[in-house]
């Protein structure tokens, strides 16, 4: 009698429980175990959990291997860059460290940035104006007018 009552309660619990994929068939289930059709075969809840655990493990392994591959590629890239352009790589690394160290907001950096940008603008303008000045002299009309004068 007590056993029957227990079975009833288990069945009621199983029927009221949330069913993730709508595959539960409470009428056929055994007491204490829920069953589900998964790709045509029946699996119990512990097996399903085990399956999910295996899937999670496989995913984690895949993620780990992908991360390892990415780290290897980054390492290979850094190694190649350091071998091909050692000073550029060192300067870049030092620049990263400088930025991380909070050197950017300092007055000296502002001054250097200002100086550098002014020089760059000046060089650009010089080149641009130089090109613009050179172009008319290279044009046929200008040579003709010069020869006529």
């Amino acid at each position: 009698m007590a056993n029957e009552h227990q079975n009833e309660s288990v069945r009621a619990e199983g029927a009221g429980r949330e069913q993730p994929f709508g595959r539960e068939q409470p009428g056929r289930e055994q007491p204490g175990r829920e069953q589900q059709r998964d790709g045509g075969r029946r699996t119990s809840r512990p097996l399903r959990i085990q399956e999910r655990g295996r899937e999670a493990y496989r995913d984690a392994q895949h993620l780990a291997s992908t991360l390892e591959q990415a780290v290897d590629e980054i390492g290979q890239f850094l190694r190649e860059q350091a071998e091909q352009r050692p000073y550029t790589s060192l300067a870049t690394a030092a620049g990263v460290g400088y930025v991380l160290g909070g050197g950017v907001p300092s007055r000296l950096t502002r001054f250097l940035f200002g100086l550098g940008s002014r020089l760059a603008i000046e060089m650009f303008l010089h080149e641009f104006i130089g090109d613009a000045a050179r172009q008319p002299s290279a044009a046929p009309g200008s040579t003709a007018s010069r020869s006529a004068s």
Partner: protein
Amino acid sequence: MERSASNWADEASARVSGLADDVNERFKDASAGLRDLDEQTRAFVKQSPFVALAAAVAGGFLLGRLLSRL
């Protein structure tokens, strides 16, 4: 008088020549030192690139830390 001026010019010329030789020698030494430093740096970066990069980052970090107070 003329002779003393000539002597003085010779002496000055010899001194300038000696100074030029000295400067030339020092430039040669500095050049050789820089070439050695360059070779050593390249070899070190080639041998252990990550240590070199980490050292550069650390150096830049310290420099940034120091200069941020200016």
